[in-house]
């Protein structure tokens, strides 16, 4: 399946946002995909403690050593997603922040990093009524449709691949 753009979503485990981004042909960058890599990796030797000694080092790239370990641990998962981000949808005031997304300092840092990355960002309020839901959906759809339909350099890469295949056949 080929996707148009990698879209970061906040809340990072949102069903509604992940579904809408995928529905319009883009790839949602979600916590679930990161978690999957952690929990299904055969190299992991100490489940359910899924953090390896490498992870806090990764987290140090985004948060200083004085910052609570939980923030660094979370950033070890979220940080690589932010680096891939080509666009972002941030929902303000989501009703609940439980479990892996329940850390406000991580959330603030995540939003700050996304905003300062310079990619197109849509900020909407979490809907609480039917009318708000309509506005919410319309804004997200308009934003997703405004994203580039073709990746810059994708054609060149495809041409390079074709050329390489032809050479191999020869």
């Amino acid at each position, binding site marked *: 399946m080929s996707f148009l753009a990698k879209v970061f979503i906040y809340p990072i485990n949102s069903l*509604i946002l992940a579904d809408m981004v995928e529905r319009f042909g883009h790839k949602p960058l979600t916590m679930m995909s990161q*978690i999957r890599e952690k929990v299904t990796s055969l190299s992991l030797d100490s489940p359910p403690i899924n953090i390896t000694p490498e992870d806090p080092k990764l987290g140090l790239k985004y948060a200083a050593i004085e910052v609570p370990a939980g923030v660094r641990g979370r950033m070890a998962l979220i940080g690589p997603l932010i680096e891939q981000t080509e666009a972002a949808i941030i929902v303000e005031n989501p009703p609940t922040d439980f479990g892996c997304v329940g850390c406000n300092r991580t959330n603030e840092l995540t939003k700050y990093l996304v905003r300062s990355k310079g990619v197109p960002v849509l900020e909407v309020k979490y809907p609480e009524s039917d009318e708000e839901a309509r506005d919410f959906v319309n804004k997200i759809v308009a934003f997703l449709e405004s994203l580039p339909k073709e990746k810059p350099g994708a054609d060149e890469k495809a041409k390079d691949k074709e050329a390489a295949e032809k050479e191999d056949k020869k």
Partner: protein
Amino acid sequence: MTEMKKEEITKYIVISSDKVLPSDAAMKIYESEFPVTVKETCFGLIVSGARDDVETLVEQIRQLDKNHIFVKDRGFPPGDERRCRASRGGGPRPGFHFLREEVQMLPAIGAALDELEAKECVIEKRKAKCRLKTSDLEKVIEEELSR
């Protein structure tokens, strides 16, 4: 072996439809004969299996009522001891609370998607009217004259 393990994915199918029940969707998956694991839940289904199979199936299920069936990835496979309620002494599993909050909002989101789709249909029809071909116009004139 490692490659095969990497290809295994799990997806939630959350159903907020008046036409399709989770059991209908589960039956559809059983009929498809794809080698996937299906778990029926209160909000929909959890489907786990090879990436291609799951993605194909999910797309088929979504088409049953595309604006009212929502899909997202899941990190843990179904029945995983680290998340399954059976091995954790009951109570909602971690991650369910936010899903439950979002499920309450799904009817409104589905209605908004329906509305958006209806609007697009109207716009497309109008565009088609504007672009009347001469051949079509000839047909209309002939039909009118033949009355």
